[in-house]
């Protein structure tokens, strides 16, 4: 692993990384107790603070996955930039996709404070070692899919990220605050696309419903496996990296989204969906976890395409990086 030389947040300067082996058991226990007390007291952990190696590793895993998801998420939507139905829609979609690039960069920047260089995270993505959200392995077949993604996928992301904004790691929490402010635009533009289509011709309404049918269940899967089957949940909850269970957040998303669908005349593709007056929540049908497992293990409809597109984008951008480096070197030389 290469470490970033970074004074502001340089883990190399602290006793954190690689020191656990040299700390005595008593010292380690003392630090871990202090760390636990800090978390229990609602304080944030900052890059130079001592942290257990497992906390650092879990955060790096989560944050790099999150950053990769933002970046890979540009691909299904980018698919429609050249075919947006009007110039105004194109401008909005471009701004939205640019935001996703920005979100990826906020989170990579925050993840780098944990001591891993961004290039190493990107290598892990391109080599298939790191994962990204399963939702982006589904194709965008019609313009309505852009509406469904903004409304449902970004809507699900907002539910997740609003909670992550209160997580215990300072840089991650601050990146989430910034992202949450911007996601609301994504969510609203998606819902507006769906609402317009639902006021249109029968073909347009069918197109919106078809997008709904294909994206509803994958959007529910975005919250991850059920709590009984989520291997990392217990640690993450203890450390306040996660504050709610996957199932709680999924329920929150369903409860807020169903009325939005009804308001514009979209049907939720779930025969078992019904409002429970006593729990004040919607009941819903069984999620197809076999499909979820297939998609995260690389066998979704677009996994291979996404990785190819991402690798091509990286390689096709090589000349930009070379040009920028050459320009910078030339400028430095002319100053001498």
């Amino acid at each position: 692993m290469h470490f970033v030389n970074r004074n502001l947040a340089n883990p190399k300067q602290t006793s954190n990384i690689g020191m656990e082996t040299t700390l005595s058991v008593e010292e380690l226990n003392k630090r871990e107790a202090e760390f636990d007390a800090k978390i229990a007291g609602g304080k944030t952990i900052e890059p130079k603070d001592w942290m257990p190696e497992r906390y650092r590793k879990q955060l790096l895993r989560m944050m790099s996955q999150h950053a990769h998801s933002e970046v890979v998420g540009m691909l299904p939507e980018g698919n429609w930039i050249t075919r947006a139905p009007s110039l105004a829609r194109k401008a909005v979609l471009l701004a939205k996709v640019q935001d996703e690039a920005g979100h990826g960069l906020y989170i990579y920047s925050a993840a780098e404070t944990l001591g891993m260089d961004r290039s190493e995270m990107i290598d892990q993505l391109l080599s298939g070692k790191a994962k990204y959200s399963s939702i982006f392995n589904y194709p965008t077949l019609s313009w309505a899919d852009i509406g469904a993604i903004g409304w449902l996928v970004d809507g699900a992301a907002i539910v997740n990220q609003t909670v992550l904004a209160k997580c215990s790691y300072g840089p991650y929490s601050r990146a989430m605050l910034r992202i949450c402010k911007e996601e609301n635009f994504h969510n609203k533009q998606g819902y507006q696309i769906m609402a317009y289509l639902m006021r249109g011709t029968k073909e347009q309404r069918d197109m919106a419903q078809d997008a709904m049918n294909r994206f509803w269940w994958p959007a529910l899967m975005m919250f991850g496996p059920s709590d009984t089957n989520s291997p990392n949940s217990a640690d993450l909850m203890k450390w306040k990296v996660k504050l709610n269970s996957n199932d709680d957040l999924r329920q929150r998303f369903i409860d807020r989204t169903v009325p939005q669908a009804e308001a514009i005349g979209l049907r939720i593709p779930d025969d078992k969906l019904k409002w429970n007056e006593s729990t004040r929540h919607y009941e819903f049908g069984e999620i197809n976890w076999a499909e979820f497992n297939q998609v995260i293990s690389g066998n979704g409809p677009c996994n291979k395409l996404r990785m190819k597109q991402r690798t091509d984008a990286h390689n096709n951008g090589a000349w930009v990086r070379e040009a920028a480096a050459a320009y910078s070197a030339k400028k430095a030389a002319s100053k001498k």
Partner: protein
Amino acid sequence: MSDNNHQWPIWEVFIQPKNGSAHEHAGSVHAPDGEMALLNARDVYGRRLEGVNMWVVPATAIVASTPEDVGPFFDPANDKMYRWPNYFKTPEGIKQIS
């Protein structure tokens, strides 16, 4: 993978949210030099009128105190309570001094 995968240095980005306020840390970018760091920072941290001025600083140029030293580093303030105005009792009947 191409051989230009090496990372450029990190620049920390500070934004002045509005005229008259202090610059605040926003995040960081990678760039080969300050000029490009500023352009990248504008694209990443300034898409929505976030401020009126932006600084980029090489991350290596920032020297920071360490969390372990928080006690000794900030402690001297502890036994100098007279630095706070409420240390001083105001005679009765005086409404306001400053």
